[in-house]
């Protein structure tokens, strides 16, 4: 490892209606936050297949975030509840692979919560920075 501070590579799956819009609001409000989170837009957090999470870790992600509408407010009624269930089960499985619970995170960010998105990005980045890089990823390690 080099002398520089470790910059975590984070992947975020954001639902279009709430979280993506909330992140957009953080942008239009010119809020500054850590640039480590790369966003993939899906229509609903319920679209997030566990295989996406595994693929992200495999490709080199140090942390994965799923963000959706608050429970009860899902644009498609219930998709975020499915995301919640999948997150809980997948977390357990990932732990058995040796991936710490903290690396896979689920957040609810509404369309008005630009500030919350900023906070989540910054916190997640610092948390993973402390945790360090993920020590396995099938050999596709990034320097």
């Amino acid at each position, binding site marked *: 490892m080099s002398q520089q501070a470790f910059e975590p590579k984070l992947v975020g799956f954001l639902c279009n209606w709430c979280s993506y819009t909330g992140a957009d609001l953080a942008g239009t409000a010119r809020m500054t936050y850590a640039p480590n989170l790369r966003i993939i837009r899906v229509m609903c957090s319920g679209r997030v297949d566990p295989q996406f999470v595994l693929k992200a870790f495999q490709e080199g992600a140090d942390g994965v975030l799923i963000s959706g509408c608050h429970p009860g407010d899902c644009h498609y009624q219930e998709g975020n509840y499915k995301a919640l269930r999948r997150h809980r089960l997948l977390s357990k499985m990932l732990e058995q692979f040796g991936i710490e619970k903290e690396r896979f995170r689920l957040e609810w960010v509404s369309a*008005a919560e630009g500030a919350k998105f900023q906070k989540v990005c910054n916190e997640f980045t610092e948390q993973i920075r402390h945790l360090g890089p993920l020590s396995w990823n099938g050999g596709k390690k990034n320097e």
Partner: protein
Amino acid sequence: MIQITIDGKKLEVEEGTTILQAAEKAEIHIPTLCYHPLLEPYASCRVCVVEVNRQGKKELVTSCNTQVQPGMVIETQSERALRARKLNVEMLLARAPAAKPVQKIALELGIEKPRFEIKDPDRKCILCGLCVRTCEQVVGANAISFINRGQEREVSPPFGEPSEACIGCTACAYFCPTEAITFEDIHDRKVIHDELYLGPSTAIRVPVRQAVPMVPFIDEDNCIHFKTGNCQLCVKVCEKEAINHEMKEEEIEIEVGSIILASGFKSFDAYRIPAYGYGRFPNVITALEFERLVNASGPTGGKILLANGEEPKAVGIIHCVGSRDENYNEYCSRVCCMYSLKFAHLIKEKTEADIYDFYIDMRCFGKGYEEFYHRLLHEGTKFIRGRVSEITDIPLTEEEDGKLIIRVEDTLIGTVRRIPVDMVILATGLEPGLSHSELAHTFNISCSQDTFFLERHPKLAPVSTFSDGIFLAGTCQAPKDIPDTVAQAGAAASEALALADKGSFELEPITAEIDEKLCAGCQICVSLCPFSAITYNKEKHISEVNEALCKGCGTCVAACPSGAAQQKHFRDIQIMAEIEGIFID
């Protein structure tokens, strides 16, 4: 039909008509005191006596309760009738000299002073029995009646004691012609009201004079009919027979294609700022309460008065109550500066009071607004730039005694000032209306940080929401004044109409589809779909997506074990490619 002659006029009337009613039809005036068209006649005052020629016999009868007979000849002003009438009125005047209607008829008949002894010069009760009849026939409470006889006769509840039968409806006072019965309004001018009609009103009423729709409602809690089963005078007088006490709340289901939410605002609750003394000081009122006060159809007829009925000599108007405040609402409520200026102008017009206007900024953004502010500057209102810290009634000097003192930092001068006034108007801000959070949940609408409904785009789509077919108009979306509300309402209406008018509907092409070859018919997707867009085809043993119902959430795709279900434009292979793309160096 019966033929009669009254004062020489020939008349034809229906059977059962009384002489008084016939006279009314012939436009002949007969004075009355104890008669009321809505009550059974009692004929106690004897003022309506007329001379009647019936089958050759002449006699005096009371016209209010005597029915006409065929061939009757009636003289309302004959010498005998007039003599009897004058005597009766003279006696009534001696009994109740303070009764104004009796005085009026006495004057008309040329009676100056009764020749009989006046026992009680202040008495007003003429024993007409209207109150008793009202309580019996209209209200049905039977709480009062005549007691004693002769000179001692009077109206009273049983044994002269307050009766439980009395329901406090004040109908007796309403029907009393001489104000012998009055009621005390035990509410003083309370300015703390949930509904803004400050002032006494009837159980059936229009909420305010400018109500839309302009239709009265029945206040079930105060309506006599719901207490005693009687009255229903409103039903009797309504020509259109439009009143129905049996109406019950109904829930009606209407199928529509688009919905416009225009649920409005409510005022910031001034109780939340205890330092301003709202609720403690009766002369600290909110903006809406002042609007009602100054309205010509309001409780004071538009006069600006303090709680004790006097005119204020100094008024303070405080801007930004609950707005632009990190302790309450951070946003600016947009309308308060302008309405505060309006108030200052109205107070100047209607009273001699000194006016102090406490502001942070003057937000006069609209057409003619700045020019109006300029006019105010010349009118003599004193503008003080600073936030008011508190309103107190504890005086430090003699001139502050009995006043409300406004404590404020005058930022332009750079000192803290104490300004004594008589009335304080709080320019309370706007908050989303009463059913806001319920509506948000029912329609699945998001709210922005200021808690108003979220528009699809702050600049480019201010009337639509993220749900197709649901539009926003007015202050439920953000604080705004009347011109902006009207403009937004027009926009929302036209977008809703355009939707209906198109005849076709555009769907986003991001629906899910199921590959027949890969689908195993496990039906996991069927139960997951919140819109019931997937059905199981029993013949083919596969599941199928109805594209018209599919909203494109992709939940079924994530759950499909075989990858048969895919979402157009969000296919697994596409998202996987995105993930790979993130890590390409």
